């Protein structure tokens, strides 16, 4: 079984595209539809990486990341933000929260895969 990656995005088409990009390279891709759903799924799952959108219903990506970082069980998890936003202030905020990478949609599958490989090897 490959390394587990959780993709958190309210768009099913994005979740599908991320899965297609990673599963062919041997990753096991799990999905969550928003931040609340992700927080429920993360504990007890041996994740190698989280790929998170920012603008989501119920709980935003940055709020979700804050909660992940404040939990002893999950604060070590590497996180890649995949969003439409390229705002340097948001990027700086995410970096302060320990985000490891930032990618602006629409994404190139091969670039996402190379980043995921790098981040999961580093972990």
């Amino acid at each position, binding site marked *: 079984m490959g390394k587990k990656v959780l993709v958190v995005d*309210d*768009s*099913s*088409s*994005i979740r*599908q*595209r991320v899965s*297609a990009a990673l599963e062919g390279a041997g990753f096991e891709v799990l999905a969550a539809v928003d931040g609340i759903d992700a927080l429920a799924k993360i504990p007890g799952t041996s994740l190698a990486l989280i790929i998170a959108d920012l*603008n*989501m*219903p119920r709980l935003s990506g940055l709020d979700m990341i804050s909660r992940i970082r404040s939990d002893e069980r999950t604060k070590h998890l590497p996180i890649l933000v995949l*969003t*439409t*936003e*390229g*705002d*340097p202030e948001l*990027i700086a905020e995410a*970096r302060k929260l320990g*985000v*490891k*990478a*930032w*990618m*602006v*949609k*629409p*994404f*190139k599958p091969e*670039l*996402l895969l190379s*980043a995921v490989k*790098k*981040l999961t090897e580093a972990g």
Partner: protein
Amino acid sequence: MGSQHSVVFDQVIESSVVDCFSVRELALCPAEAVRPPAPYAEGAILTFISLFGEHLTGTLLLAVRPDLAEALSLAVGPGGETQAAHLDALAELSNELLGRIKNRLLPYGVTFQLGLPKALACAGFWLHTVTGETRRAHRFTSPRGDVWVWFDVVVGPDFRMLPFDESSAKCLPEGELVLF
């Protein structure tokens, strides 16, 4: 909204829409926006997403023919044939479009936050504004019919659009990745 602001908004919206569809391998050509817009005899997929900032608020609306939405959805992969998938594909497109517009307005000192995109299928539609502002209508032709975009914004009295400043624009471009 001042005419200078309108010119910048129009240029940013037009280039953003063309680029957004181009990465999905659909070539759009800007065309004159006739008023009122011709109805879609085959129905339409309509998406809308709000934007809100300190000095401006508004909504971006996007309308396409159902078969165009279907083509965009099928390009994502298997499972794209359902209407739910069509709506999701269009909602995500409008999300990416407004993100692109935001990134391109940042060098003018204009910033706002994005709301959540919504999409719906309809037999027809008409638009009504309660703001009294002139709605900016943009029409694009494509091999799969017209694409309509409305950028409906209200700016406050303190709204300022600065001269374009490339040096201040450290926005990460679409499709790019940065590792920390």
